[in-house]
């Protein structure tokens, strides 16, 4: 008798939980599709046959600013395209998606396209951001006695391997006659590096904004040097050769669209800061600092910019981070 009641109770629990489970999964499926529908429905109601363009961005970058501004979506719609925006956690993941044909455009910092080209992918440059070296640099604790790059000799420095900050660090060290063998490099991604730095496990941290601003405001850090004189630390808008060969006109549409959004960004920095604060979930002070020390803008690649990238490629080859010499010029798409 008791056994029977227990059995029924267990069956009840199983059924209730399973129903909740299936209901939850169903709601999830609907949530996923609602996402897709809201973008496609709005489009289909106006013009039925819009071709899809996929653009990858990272939180808070120039493409996200363009996405929020909305002007590029409008331009593309006029040309018969609909943009699907995809967010990525890192430049490496974005490039992988780009190289495998899952993205048509994307943005990364200055070093990922170098590694990608060396790996033999057909990723090409279509646009370059204005330099933003003021927000990048080598951070040290406020209490540190270091005053110049020379003092870094023998110290441990956190850096994201192969990143733009890594390049900045090597250039800074070499400018005073040090090499990376004279310091102790600790390879950490930004979130892990932040913990190591604030806990005093490393003496310095080479990093970019908004992490720099965040550490300066919230973690008692100061810049030993910024990226000035060492790097331009540009953003790059990338695509693939296969795509640009087929849609040369769209390349200009994207670069021009981003340029328009960034003009707006320069004129409305406080509003931009609010936007970034929401997107990045950072303090207002941090995004204010990030936005204030940077001029936004984008252009096609000039000879000077190509030369800058070539310098990175040559240094990366010399240090053995890429295993063949590459010609940046070959992977640039212009008019």
């Amino acid at each position: 008798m008791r056994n029977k009641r227990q059995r029924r109770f267990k069956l009840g629990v199983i059924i209730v939980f399973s129903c909740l489970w299936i209901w939850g999964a169903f709601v999830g499926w609907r949530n996923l599709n609602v996402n897709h529908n809201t973008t496609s429905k709005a489009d289909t109601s106006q013009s039925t046959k819009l071709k899809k363009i996929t653009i990858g961005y990272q939180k808070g970058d120039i493409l996200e600013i363009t996405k929020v501004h909305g002007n590029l979506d409008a331009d593309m719609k006029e040309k018969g395209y609909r943009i699907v925006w995809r967010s990525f956690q890192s430049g490496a993941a974005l490039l992988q998606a780009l190289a495998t044909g899952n993205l048509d455009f994307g943005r990364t910092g200055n070093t990922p396209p170098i590694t990608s080209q060396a790996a033999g992918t057909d990723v090409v440059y279509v646009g370059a951001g204005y330099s933003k070296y003021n927000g990048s640099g080598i951070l040290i604790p406020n209490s540190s006695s270091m005053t110049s790059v020379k003092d870094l000799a023998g110290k441990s420095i956190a850096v994201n391997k192969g990143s733009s900050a890594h390049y900045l660090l090597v250039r800074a060290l070499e400018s005073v006659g040090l090499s990376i063998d004279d310091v102790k490099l600790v390879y950490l991604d930004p979130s892990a590096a932040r913990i190591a730095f604030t806990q005093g496990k490393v003496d310095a941290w080479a990093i970019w904004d908004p992490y720099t601003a965040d550490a300066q405001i919230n973690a008692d850090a100061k810049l030993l040097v910024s990226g000035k004189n060492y790097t331009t630390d540009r953003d790059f808008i990338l695509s693939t050769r296969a795509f640009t060969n087929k849609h040369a006109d769209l390349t200009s549409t994207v670069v021009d669209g981003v340029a328009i959004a960034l003009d707006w960004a320069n004129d409305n920095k406080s509003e931009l800061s609010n936007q970034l604060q929401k997107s990045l979930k950072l303090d207002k002070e941090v995004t204010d600092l990030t936005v204030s020390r940077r001029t936004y803008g984008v252009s096609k690649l000039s000879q000077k910019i190509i030369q800058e990238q070539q310098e990175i490629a040559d240094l990366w080859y010399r240090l053995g981070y890429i295993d063949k010499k590459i010609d940046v010029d070959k992977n640039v798409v212009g008019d």
Partner: protein
Amino acid sequence: MKKKITWQRLLPMLIPILVLAVWQLLSVLKVIPTNILPAPSAVILDGIKLTQNGELTRNLTISLYRATIGFLIGGSIGFVLGLLNGLSRISNLLTDSSIQMFRNIPHLALIPMVILWFGIGESAKIFLVTIGVMFPIYINTLHGIQSVDPGLIEMGRVYQLNKRQLFSKIIFPGALPSILVGVRYALGVMWTTLIVAETIAADSGIGFMAMNAEDFMDMETIVLCIVIYAILGKLSDVIVKYLEEFLLDWQQTD
């Protein structure tokens, strides 16, 4: 007698509750700085905030959807393969060692390949969960069938059961305890694989929420995600444990 039982029922909760209490106390006393580990109350408040703006429920249900589909596909494949290899020697010789090789590849190492094959959409995430879930179910189904008491099968033959009856009356019930252990284990693997899967160009899901929080040091949300994973793991375990007791109560001898 009855008192003793309720007392024992509460015992498993003792350690989590004690840990929470000490943790809250240390946070309030500022022994643990909040930027290293936020107080439990702060985590709960964060959870309430994220539930109110709908972010938590949205991500949770989307994760649940991916997990369920992956589990159903992977579980079915693992189960069928386990059955085949358990019942047929030829099939076992043919596929078992290949499966064992594939089984030990870390999921993180597969990501570049998964992006190449499945792109960056839902199918890539579901595929990862599928292969994560497949192996525990495969191994335990196979093991369950192989370890059915040969004496019982012999007895079935003596009673002149045909092949189908032999399977449904003796082999399958005999293998069921082991299969359910596989299901229990697979449910755990399902959640851990999903975290990895949701780092591929995801913009939703609990794994995405955790990664996003990690990027910008949002400690409350990081801890919240950890707690959610723990609760989801425990809940799935409870369901299977009850299912086990329900389906296997013929085993109890008392």
